[in-house]
């Protein structure tokens, strides 16, 4: 149950995080900001930076957690194999 819950929650939250980080323009279209950052308007450069480095960081996190959940599913499978080897499920 634990690994399954983690898998579902990971996919939902990670998808939401990716969509948010890739669509910062949508957020700024609702809440406009009139400021500058690194010489650019914030509403221009922040979506670009998030769309590159934000997404890149999320892929690192998603890769790590995805691998860990796979291992957990594998462990639950193994535990199941020992516990009820004879049982048909």
């Amino acid at each position, binding site marked *: 149950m634990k690994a399954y819950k983690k898998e579902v929650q990971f996919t939902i939250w990670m998808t939401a995080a990716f969509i948010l980080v890739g669509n910062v323009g949508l957020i700024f279209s609702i809440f406009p900001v009139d400021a500058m950052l690194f*010489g650019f308007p914030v509403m*221009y450069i922040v979506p670009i930076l998030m769309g590159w480095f934000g997404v890149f960081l999320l892929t690192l996190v998603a890769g790590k957690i995805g691998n860990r959940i796979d291992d957990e599913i594998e462990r639950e499978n193994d535990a199941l194999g020992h516990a009820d080897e004879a049982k048909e499920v």
Partner: protein
Amino acid sequence: MEQNWQLDNPILGLVVVGATFVLFYIVGFISNRQSKSAKELYVGGSNVGAITNGLAMAATYMSLATFLGITALILQLQVPFIMLWIQLILAIPLITIIYGTSLRRMGAFSPTHFIRDRYGTTASIIAALFMILVSIMYALGQMIGIAITFETLLGIPYITGLFIFGILIVGYITIGGMAGATNNAAIQMVIIALMFIVPLAAIMKAIGASGWYFPPLLYSDMVPAMMDALPTFFDYQFSPKWYFSIIPALTIGALGLPHLAMRVYTASSLKSARSAMVWFAFILGLVFSATYAMGFVGVFATTTQGVTISDADADKLTIILNMVYNPEWVTALVIAGAISAGLSTLSGNLLAIGALISQDIISTLKPNISQRLNLRIGFIAIFAGGIASILLAINPPAFLVVSILWAFGLAGVTNAPLIIVGVWWKEANKFGAIAASVVGGALYIIVSPFVFPSIVLTGHGVTDGMGLSGAMLAVPVSFILLIVVSYITNRIPALSGKLTKQADIELIERIHGWKDIKAYRYNSTLGAGITVVVSAAVAIWALMPWGM
């Protein structure tokens, strides 16, 4: 002032392009000597390393549009188009985490392969036909772009260029298969990045930008001059609804593109697929950011530096900037980069068409044909798909990039819901899938400006043409139909004989990595209900006035 943008020395351009072609043929030939089975042809034996695959994913995704169309649309739409483009980077990461690893575990060749196992023959053939349409539209865009490049820059007549280079390209993809295409795409990605960013640095240096040594991000010293010359450049122009519609149309749309998903299945392992996604994000972010810089520099050059680019030449902005500011041999290299970008995407599209026709249609209808015959049909399908896109490109439609983006929406309506819901909800069945694909697809086509120009949602040409408005209505409708029709038909006893509930449940558990079956897994009625409510809200919002 109208100018004829053409290389003074077309031989130089031809030699550079010819040399890259020879390289691609050799790599394709060597890589594919062992392609003896369909698995090797379409997914490179599922044995591709993370860096190669990540680069190949990026190259497959970065079409000729990077060099031709995008910068033109930045010139036209300015910042809103950049905001639209940024989220395209989500494609591979989202495919990987939502369903890519599951389908890789299943051993699928293409997304429709999953649809066949999950929903049966009829649904998979409907989905495959839509996917062939999407792939051909996509391939068509590349073909047109390649022929236009040869025509305008090297002086080769459009039709001649289309046929000669079209057939050369189709030949190389047919010879190379997926292993060849993957190795070539990885090389092409390096060529694309170098041929785009290095010449851009030279252009920025010539204009006087102090951050020329890192073009993707260091051009802020041009911002004040830009704001003086064109104060509206950074304006968002459109309402939040427009920005929201990008999510169903392009973010979800990309999840249904077969040639992208197929890249995930080529990975040697699930871990390798996840590492490839990291490389993809890094390299794509780099080149995308450089594209925005190129668009910015283009607008800057036309508004402050006296460079004149007519509307008809807008597509060639990248190459024109190189002609103005760089020596001719650099422009020749940029053209080779543009052709590489077209080639890698085209090979992804054609391989998808090959897999769809031979694996998803012919093997489905005639499961007993031999491996050898199946492989031969695959080669013929790849070749025929290429020839079809060449023939369709004889009379090219206007708006190259716009029609490619419209194809994203079609994939989002007809394929993405079937795959996403199919992987995560056991109740989804073939009746729901067929209803979603057919009704959603028809609705999307009806509200597009291409069939009934008077039936559109916004009346704003580019918004309807890119499928933003159509997808905002049709994608949620497709999700609702899939869930509601499945839910109802699962509860009609007369239909239970026609459904394969137990096989579906086993398939879903297996592709998520489970060796046992548990009723509580992937069975949430609450999750399905929330999806229906949210989808209904989005569809109603899409029908309300857009105020454009």
